């Protein structure tokens, strides 16, 4: 068992299959953290700002960690990252980019916008599992995340 049930994770991912792969690994690792998913950038913005379908902060709590795909329908992951990092209330949430894009420009832009980690999605299923396991252990067990209690 890893993680903390009081620290929700927001996954922004348009591909059901990719999300399914992630969910499988989490299930095997027995992740305690509640997982929330948005399938596009606009939805993610609604979630973070409690607008539209996510107006209730109880059912859509502020995440302690954001896992972000870059190529998203609607508002793009790059744009979303920039907006989160420019927002005084949201900027201290660590954002981890999880993408297929190995474009050096993307990598540079993301780090310039204070991304916490930039992780490439491997095609090979074993490597994908390995990557996700390491990532989950590191971010949910080793790293101290900003305290969300009282917010």
């Amino acid at each position, binding site marked *: 068992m890893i993680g903390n049930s009081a620290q929700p994770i927001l996954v922004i991912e*348009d*591909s*059901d*299959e990719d999300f399914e792969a992630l969910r499988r690994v989490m299930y095997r690792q027995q992740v305690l953290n509640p997982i929330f998913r948005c*399938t*596009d950038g*606009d939805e993610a913005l609604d979630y973070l700002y409690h607008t539209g379908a996510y107006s209730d902060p109880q059912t859509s709590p502020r995440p302690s960690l954001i896992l972000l795909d870059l190529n998203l*329908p*609607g*508002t*793009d992951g790059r744009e979303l990252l920039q907006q989160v990092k420019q927002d005084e209330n949201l900027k201290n949430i660590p954002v981890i980019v999880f993408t297929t894009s190995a474009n050096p420009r993307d990598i540079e832009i993301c780090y310039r916008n204070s991304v916490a980690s930039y992780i490439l999605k491997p095609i090979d299923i074993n490597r994908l599992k390995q990557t996700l396991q390491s990532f989950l252990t590191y971010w949910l067990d080793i790293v101290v995340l900003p305290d969300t209690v009282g917010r």
Partner: protein
Amino acid sequence: MNTNKNDTAFTVDLTNCDKEPIHIPGFVQPHGVLLAIKEPELTILQVSNNTYNCLGFHPEELLNQPLRKLLESEQIDFLNDCLTQEDIQIVNPVEFTIKTFQEPIIFDGIIHRSNGVVILELEPAILEKNNNYFRFYHLVKLAIGKLQSTKTVTEISQIIVTEVRRITGFDRVMFYRFDRDWNGIVIAEDKQEHLPSYLDLHYPASDIPTPARKLYSQNWLRLIPDADYQAAAIVPTNNPLTDEPLDLSGSVLRSVSPCHIEYLHNMGVKASMSISIIKNNKLWGLIACHHQTPKYVPYEIRHACEFLGQVTSLEIATKEDNEDSESKIEIKSVLAKLVEYMSAEKSFIDGLINKQPNILNLVNAQGAAICFNKELYLLGNTPEKQDIQNLLLWIHNNIDEDIFYTDSLSQVYPEAEKFKDVASGLIALSISKTQNKYVLWFRPEEVQTVNWGGNPNQPVEVSENGGLHLSPRKSFELWKEIVRLKSLPWKSYEVNAAAELRGAIITVVLRKIDELAKLNTELERSNKELDAFAYIASHDLKEPLRGIHNYSNFLIEDYSENLDEEGKDKLRTLIRLTQRMEDLIDSLLQFSRLGRVDMSMQPTDLNAVVHRILDLLSARIEETGVEIRIPRQLPIVYCDRIQVGEVFSNLISNAIKYNDKTEKWIEIGYIEASDPVIFYVRDNGIGIREKHFDVIFRIFKRLHGPSKYGGGTGAGLTITKKIVERHDGKIWVESNYGEGSTFYFTLQKDN
């Protein structure tokens, strides 16, 4: 001119100096005698009427008489010899001894031809010949040595005035230089100490009118020994052979224009002499000598001065050219650099303005503007953009030459006065008049400290007693104003450099066009490769894809008993993904080929097109229960039927897809009286946020996750846009988020 030949009564009133026929005054100065002689018999046709004083014969005793009456036969023989010379003036002066009533007197005879008659002018010789020749040689030798040791125009001017004054003994000798507009400035002076200095004084062009300038450039030297002389008339007035007044252009005794006499009076001058300085066959300046009392200069000394004038002219020409030679070399190297920069830069304009040196250095301008392909590029101090646009329009409409330049723009283009501080001087270089491509250079107003010796617009003052008075003049204001609106003049080598740049620009631009053509060929080749890539993508990538698809299906078919529901679900996902992949590949292929498929343009009834599409989509329409509205008949337009069908197909299927209302509708129509016709497809669907209006047309850019609204490849609107653009049309969207969208498009160019 068709004037009366006998009309010698031209009244000079100081306002018409510019028109006065000063070459046919009908009078001579009385210090010598003029004879007009018919060849070959040497009969005297006309004489000045002062012959009695000089020669002891009354004019009527000489008229129609042979010249033998005055000269011994050996002198006649000598004269005849002279007259056979090619250049008869080379013999001047010829020494003649004439038997007057008392004793023989030695005269300097000066001969030339005028309109077929020989003009013989006799001046009493004052110096002894031998001595005279001795002096001439020494005077000239000394002066020439000094002249040749000079380096600059200023030095030459100073030396020549000093030397001429030393040789002649005039009170004042000035070097007077003309500018391009024939205004003059005194650039050197040598004078008696007590006299006021005229150095640096400027004189308006009208002080030396055109006819006078013409005579100055024909004769190297002009002498007026006594401005208060009583003119001697030529009798008869007209040449009896031609019945025309005698042309005295080449005469040394020619009577002086009343204008000039008045001018000398006003300056307090009794005697004057001028030596012309001529460069490239054009009057460049004058060495002007003044004396406060009458002063006669013997022919030999005048001859020496004339010779010095000629030497000075040559020296001035060389020195002036040399003075500019460094600048010329400098400008050549600037031009070479500019050509190099232009070739190296992507845009030749960058090469002209963004480097050192730049086009300002080429002509020593303070500002420049390049007008190219409707863009205006500015450098240095220039007028406002709008002012330049107006100026360009004026140039376009008024200037036909490839190169136009002025140092006083406001004189031809009065609006320029408002930006005189940056552009009183202009060079306009037309690269292509039809395409409005120009290079302009600007120079600011150069406010010079000008000391005017006179106001050309008010040369005459009426004194209290009603007489006319020339100077000192008082009102210079208007004239100063004209001078104020001037820049430094453009030197000819600067104008030439600008003209050379034109050739260079044209060459570079042509070469760039050439390079562009090569690039196009290259692009065509890489397009073909891309085409090939798209085919590989559609065929070779599809092969393994088909394998995955088929084997997944085999698994479900053959092992469905051994698989639980979750397992079957995973296989169905696999099949769905292969279909999605195929869709993506097909869209990519369609999009990449779109630009190269030939258009089949024809008048097309859009009603038929839309109904065909609606038929194809009928299953979806029924399924979703969407209401299709076509408020009125669509027009017939000139377009590619298949491709425009694709446009409607994409827009209508999107409208069906992105709608979550219970009562769905789509309206297809066009805006009345729009030109070009604006078509639209409107829905009451989910709408689009404004920030996504542009990105929806980007390839593979979707607004929703693949599982929402039936998915899609994200290529449909990109393909639609490309089709519209291939028809020279435009496509855009208006939408209220949550309420619906309207896609507008046109199928031809904007008017």
